[in-house]
């Protein structure tokens, strides 16, 4: 079983539309949506939920107002500016979205007035789509630990993959290069980067390639909407050759991509569009290299 992770660096380059198409084209694979704080894959794969679970991770502090002596120790110790003084009540309060759950305030409060309890950070789901099993999740609004939720989604997807004797796991990754991206690519078999022909897209691909190099993983790439700027597309292709990135193809700007999404379908299911044909070709190229 091989695990392929789709990422991009820059957001909005078409990761999810392409991942959904891969899920449809692939026979016998499990798909996992690891863009847990803006998970959109369900909107085009239309999953039916089978099982779900709570994602409990880390803790959060809160001040028990009746016990608080207003000494301000928590305020001075907190490195995350999560504690503030409430003029109305004359007590200190902790902001939920700012608290990183380190526990310093709770451990050093002289009045024992700070509770430090487990935090529910989200939910995960195992679902069925007409193209196989899908594992996805929802990070709670303002919650921490998106990286851990990504790792959990991948772990569940692998377990499902083993049960079903799947050939591949296809992961829709998050944008950027930080915590959730690192959690998405660590220990996978191959990374596929979707970029766009702009200075931003090229710059972000360079950073992605450095990150993937850091983890010693094979990197594959494609350019989406390549005809928006053919010159930069060419530069990206050259960059890929230079860096040993396997360039799998370029998808033209095609309004059918948006139309498919509005219909709640993947690009390859919607129409015999130019974009759909190129995505199929790219998938063929990828499979040839990965398996």
């Amino acid at each position, binding site marked *: 079983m091989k695990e392929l992770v789709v990422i991009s660096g820059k957001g909005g380059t078409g990761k999810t539309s392409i991942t959904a198409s891969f899920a449809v084209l692939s026979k016998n694979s499990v798909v996992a949506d690891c863009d847990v704080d803006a998970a959109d894959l369900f909107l085009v794969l239309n999953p039916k939920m089978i099982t779900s679970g709570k994602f409990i991770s880390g803790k959060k502090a809160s001040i028990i107002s009746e016990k608080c002596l207003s000494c301000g120790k928590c305020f001075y110790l907190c490195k995350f500016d999560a504690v503030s003084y409430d003029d109305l009540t004359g007590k200190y309060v902790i902001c939920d979205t700012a608290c990183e759950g380190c526990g*310093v305030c709770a451990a050093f409060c002289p009045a024992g007035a700070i509770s430090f309890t487990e935090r529910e950070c989200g939910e995960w789901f195992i679902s069925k789509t007409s193209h196989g099993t899908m594992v996805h999740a929802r990070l709670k609004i303002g919650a921490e630990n998106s990286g851990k939720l990504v790792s959990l989604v991948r772990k569940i997807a692998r377990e499902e993959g083993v049960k079903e004797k799947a050939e591949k796991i296809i992961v829709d990754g998050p944008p950027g290069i930080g915590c959730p991206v*690192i959690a998405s690519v660590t220990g996978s078999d191959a990374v596929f980067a979707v970029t766009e022909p702009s200075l931003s897209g090229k710059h972000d691909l360079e950073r992605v390639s450095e990150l993937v190099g850091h983890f010693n993983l094979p990197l594959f790439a494609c350019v989406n909407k390549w005809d928006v700027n053919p010159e930069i597309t060419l530069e990206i292709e050259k960059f890929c050759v230079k860096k040993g990135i396997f360039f799998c193809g370029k998808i033209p700007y095609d309004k059918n991509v948006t139309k498919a999404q509005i219909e709640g379908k993947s690009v390859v299911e919607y129409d015999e569009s130019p974009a759909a044909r190129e995505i199929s070709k790219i998938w063929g190229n990828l499979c040839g290299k990965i398996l």
Partner: protein
Amino acid sequence: MTVAVASGKGGTGKTTVAVALVLSYDRNSVLLDCDVEEPNAGFFLRSKSIKKEEFSVPVPVIDAAKCNLCGRCADFCSFNALALAGSKILVFRDLCHSCGGCSLICPQNAVMEEKNIIGEIHSAESDKIFFVEGTLKIGKAMSPPLIREVKKYGKGENLTVIDCPPGNSCPMITAVRGADYVVLVTEPTPFGRHDLSLAAETVSEMKIPLGVILNRYGSGYKGVEEFCEKRGIEIILKIDEDIKIAQAQSEGKTILDVCPEMKDKMCGIVDKIQKGLTK
């Protein structure tokens, strides 16, 4: 006044809007690129570099001569950045949140601090714009401390605009916190609507007023407008889908280069936000 430009979904045009806002503004302004994982606003400003500095966070280092291997630091650490392994305390620097708990809890005073460089802060100037961008070092997971540092440069000007990272979790929240107003940029697609709904919920929870810019307008999908109407969120601007804008952007030109009429619209948005806030 600080305006944060955020989105939920990536690639909807946050940077386009953030750059257009400061370029259109007639007085001095500050632009902070807080999308430190992939900072791109600099491509669109013809600015002169002032300085570049490394940014580090404090992480623990154990003084082996003082440490008696009691393991209380490792027990205390909520992020598993410390572990007692045989005759040694291991430090996993990149897991550390720099809370300082280990050094406070150590009965032997054996926890010292050293620097872990996680990125770089670059400041530049062009005409009336002071520009600061953070760049996270490749392989470093934690962007919030760098984002907090970039935001320190945003005080005291008439207008500070924050170009936020995508998503709805800690990096986005860190970038948005403390802003007077949030502009959420989205596009007329089901993904755009869904991610807008999450971002709007996050911003509402933080009790910051918000408005929506609907970019690449004209797909025929009405979900974003319906959502905004239902929630009583104002759509402050619609920008038509135009491949010429995408082409200009791709080579580092701004939307103002292609659509000069945007300047007045952006100024109008700043005025409107200001008036709304002082009401």
